[in-house]
């Protein structure tokens, strides 16, 4: 419970959108006097103070010390309890980019707001009864969603998609448990005709277990959508990395030239492939270098490559594979993270299907000039990010807490299945089922013993 130590009375402010370059940034404030405080740093003070909840006021953010207009903004006013946090709140839509955002935040601080701690807005929303736990967790991702797909996934959870899914699992579990508890609550001889068979079906338990496991697994996908996957372009100098980088970005960001060793330091940018947010790194071509600047660049690129979730390794098709390439590829431990590209395929004379035979096994032919192979590359990227099956449905979890609770439920069901397989005494099996149910209950809200009894009596006919 240590994390719940925020003081909930302070006015707080923070950037709600990401720090990276964007046209518009949203800065959110909240607190019982948020509107009053915000109006002190706003050119149209009266307009802001009088604004009704849910309306937008145009004006300038003014530095309260210098009186200087620091940015032209739209201020959205929310009045308690109809706001994200349930408190009074003003959201500023200002110009994107670190410099613009910094000056507005600094003006707000001078005006009496303090920096919000991570998750503090959501915490307040939760405390004020605006969100339950699963939704609170989902909000976090909406705010930080990098792509439209990530956004819709988070929205689905916000609208209770996850809750519905877990409720469904809980219901199955509760029915299973109830059929066991019924037999435990009444003596054998009083359950006329209802006492016969062993009530647990090992197959049904395993199925449920698998379904819970699948949801737990979606944590990985959820994380992909929330944090994005770092992807590094690697290869010898002049392999065509920067060219491919620009193609994937659809923008001429990296310098391209026929000079070996053009890229000296890595550069990065966000891209979206099939809705998956990727952080793409262009790196310095790998070669032995006496130039200390280039050597440093290569070292730093090495680190990027080591930490990347996916590595695109380019081999220039006009040059062919050499020992260095072989060494890099064979030295790469986790083959699933590596995508091998046969670059500049457009230059191969007599281009056509027949020379596919020259392409080494496992390489995807691509061309940054013709765009050939781009689709295959994107498929490969998506598969590497999400696994072969991709994202099976639209409910994913991405809080560690949920993942851990689901894993606990799964483990309890594995034990239950084992108990059921050997027809172990029911009281022991019931303990495992209850543990699983408790774990799921903790994700959305409690299941009490009274629920179990109620379920028994609503589903079963009991004599006595």
């Amino acid at each position, binding site marked *: 419970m240590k994390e719940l*130590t925020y003081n909930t009375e302070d006015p707080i402010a923070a950037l709600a959108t990401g720090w990276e370059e964007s046209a518009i940034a949203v800065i959110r404030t909240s607190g019982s006097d948020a509107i009053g405080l915000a109006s002190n740093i706003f050119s149209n003070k009266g307009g802001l103070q009088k604004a009704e909840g849910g309306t937008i006021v145009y004006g300038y953010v003014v530095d309260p010390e210098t009186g200087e207009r620091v940015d032209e903004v739209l201020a959205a006013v929310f009045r308690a309890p109809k706001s994200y946090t349930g408190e009074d709140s003003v959201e500023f839509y200002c110009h994107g980019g670190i410099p613009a955002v910094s000056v507005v935040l600094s003006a707000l601080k001078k005006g009496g707001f303090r920096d919000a701690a991570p998750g503090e807005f959501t915490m307040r929303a939760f*405390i004020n009864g605006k969100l339950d736990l699963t939704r609170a967790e989902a909000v976090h991702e909406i705010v930080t969603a990098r792509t439209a797909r990530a956004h819709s996934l988070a929205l689905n959870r916000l609208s209770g998609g996850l809750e519905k899914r877990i409720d469904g699992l809980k219901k199955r579990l509760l029915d299973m448990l109830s059929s066991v*508890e019924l037999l435990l609550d009444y*003596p054998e001889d009083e359950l006329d005709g209802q006492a016969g068979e062993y009530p647990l079906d090992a197959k049904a338990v395993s199925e449920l277990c698998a379904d819970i496991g699948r949801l737990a697994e979606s944590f990985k996908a959820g994380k992909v959508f929330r944090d994005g996957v770092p992807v590094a372009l690697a290869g010898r100098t002049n392999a065509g990395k920067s060219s491919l980088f620009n193609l994937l970005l659809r923008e001429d960001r990296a310098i391209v030239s026929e000079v070996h060793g053009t890229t000296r330091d890595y550069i990065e940018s966000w891209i979206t492939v099939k809705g998956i947010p990727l952080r793409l790194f262009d790196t310095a071509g790998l070669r032995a270098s006496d130039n200390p600047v280039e050597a440093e660049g290569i070292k730093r690129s090495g680190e990027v490559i080591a930490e990347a979730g996916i590595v695109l390794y380019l081999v220039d098709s006009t040059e062919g594979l050499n020992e260095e390439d072989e060494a890099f590829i064979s030295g790469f431990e986790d083959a699933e993270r590596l995508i091998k590209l046969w670059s500049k395929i457009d230059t191969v004379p007599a281009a056509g299907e027949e020379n596919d035979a020259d392409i080494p096994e496992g390489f995807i032919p691509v061309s940054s000039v013709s765009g050939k192979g781009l689709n295959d590359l994107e498929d490969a990227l998506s598969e590497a990010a999400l696994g072969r099956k991709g994202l099976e449905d639209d409910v994913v979890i991405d809080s560690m807490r949920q993942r851990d609770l689901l894993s606990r439920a799964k483990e309890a069901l594995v*034990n239950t299945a084992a108990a059921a397989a050997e027809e172990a005494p029911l009281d022991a099996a019931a*303990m*495992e089922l209850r543990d699983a149910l408790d774990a799921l209950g903790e994700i959305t809200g409690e299941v009490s013993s009274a629920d179990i009894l109620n379920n*028994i009596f609503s589903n079963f006919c009991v004599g*006595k």
Partner: protein
Amino acid sequence: MSNTDFDAIVIGGGHAGIEASLALARLGFETMLITQSLDTIGRLSCNPSIGGLSKGNIVREIDALGGEMAQLIDKSMIQFRILNQRRGPAVQAPRAQADKFLYNRLAKETVEGQKHLQPFQDTVTDFILDHDSRNIKGVVTERGRRFTARTVVMTTGTFMEGKIFIGDYESPSGRIGEPAAIGLGSSLRRLGFRVARLKTGTPARVSSASIDYSRMEEQPGDPDIIPFSFANETVDRPQVPCWITYTNEKTHDIIRANMDKSPLYGGKIVGTGPRYCPSIEDKVVRFPDRDRHQIFVEPEGLGSDEMYLNGISSSLPETVQESFIRTLPGLEDVKIMRPGYAVEYDFIDPRQLLPSLMTKQISGLFSAGQTNGTSGYEEAGCQGLLAGINAAMYMLGRDPLILSRSEAYSGVLVDDLVTLGTKEPYRMFTSRAEYRLCLRHDTADIRLSEKAAYAGLRTPVAAEALAMKVKGLDEIKDLLASRRVGKKELEAAVGRVDGIEQRLGESFEKLMKVPGFSAADLLVLDPELENRNRRWLEQAAIDIKYEGYIGRQEKQIRRFKRMENLKIPVDFNYDTISGISVEAIEKFKDIKPLSVGQASRISGVRSSDIAVLLVALGRGAGVSEDDE
């Protein structure tokens, strides 16, 4: 010390009142037990039986805590069985048929023989309170007597403004033939207590001589009797059988045709009945698809001709009862001696009590038993004992004895009552307990001995018996760990113990973990084990067999205790917290939970309310994290 007539007054000599008054007197407090009739002390109003699933565990908990019920049944049983042998150790429980006349007489004798305890026949009609009505001062009786005391324990059972119904007949009674206790219910209402109505029912008693047992199944007792009391080595009592018969479509047709004559369905009874122990009318209405219901025919006592028809409780007119009972095989010519009836009575909403069972409103006033909305002798007994102990603790200025949900069924019961209240007569079920693998009946002494010592009710005999048992269990476990299945053992067991052939060289301990092997198999392998205490051997075998499960349960308990150990002061000011829903604040103020764990169990409280409460408590509002 004080200038009151007594230290404590207990109202009502039922199963709760007996335990409360004995506990207080044994702790040296001058106690008066006022009850309507001294002849009905400890009367078994309904079933002539004690124990059953989870209830049997409670009886053994009562014993471990220094109560009386286990001794009474050990001396009066006429049949013993362990229920649910096949369903696993945690849900097995002892049950015994009682000779109800003997039980009643023994209870009376025990109360009469107790030092510091004065039984007195009268009916309490009102309370005496101090000037601002915050503290109890004593009671007023029907005959106009006034007795003062420092504490009062109220255990009025089904008698407070009780009313019984048989068809058109109704009468102000708590049991058939016994007058209701009128007055106290109105006093409580006047004082502002929330008092409501519940109902329950009992079946007809019939003449054994008129039954044709050849048409019924016989249900004998177990050959081996396990005493309920941990202090008793053995029970040597005669055993008689019970009998099983069934209702049929004809029975149901008669009941359906006469439903309009039922006081329940005719709307005369307003109280809510028990869903779990319904009348036969209820069963026929609620389970129209069932073509039969099982009925147990149980003896009421050794010298008595009366038989109890378990499972066919009814408040239909007597003639209707007679005609449907006569449709049951074996009962074609039966003669009814006492008709079945329903009783409706006042109970107080138990959410008005602290976990010590003291009322929040009036200090020194405790309430226990059916009055708190429960049903059943065992449920009444454990509450009576706890209320008696806590009245004593209150007078001693010591912390109340509150059992946790992870320590005892009695703890589950009290926590459920004071936290959730009840809408129907509350009876214990194993499924109400989250941690029942750790609430086995054979471990009640180990679980609760320290609590009995805290209360001052642990007798030297009980302490000695427990010490011997713990030592004995350890020795047996050591032995099982070291003994192996050798050639000799294998020879002795082949053909008598399934699957033993594959177990050569394995330790007995390991063998116990294999599904299908039991303590009985060990006796075949090594007849020497016969010399060990058989019950301890079984208990050790269960401990070993379920070691993994029990270990996991203990882990769950540790998780549970984290929230239980976050204490909330009784006088905590919830109004100062912002962010908790109005509904939750009202509930917190009403229930006055003593821990965050208890607060989280209140119905309608959301996890966000608890989060805010934690924040508020963490901010120096007096939260203490004691690890027991």
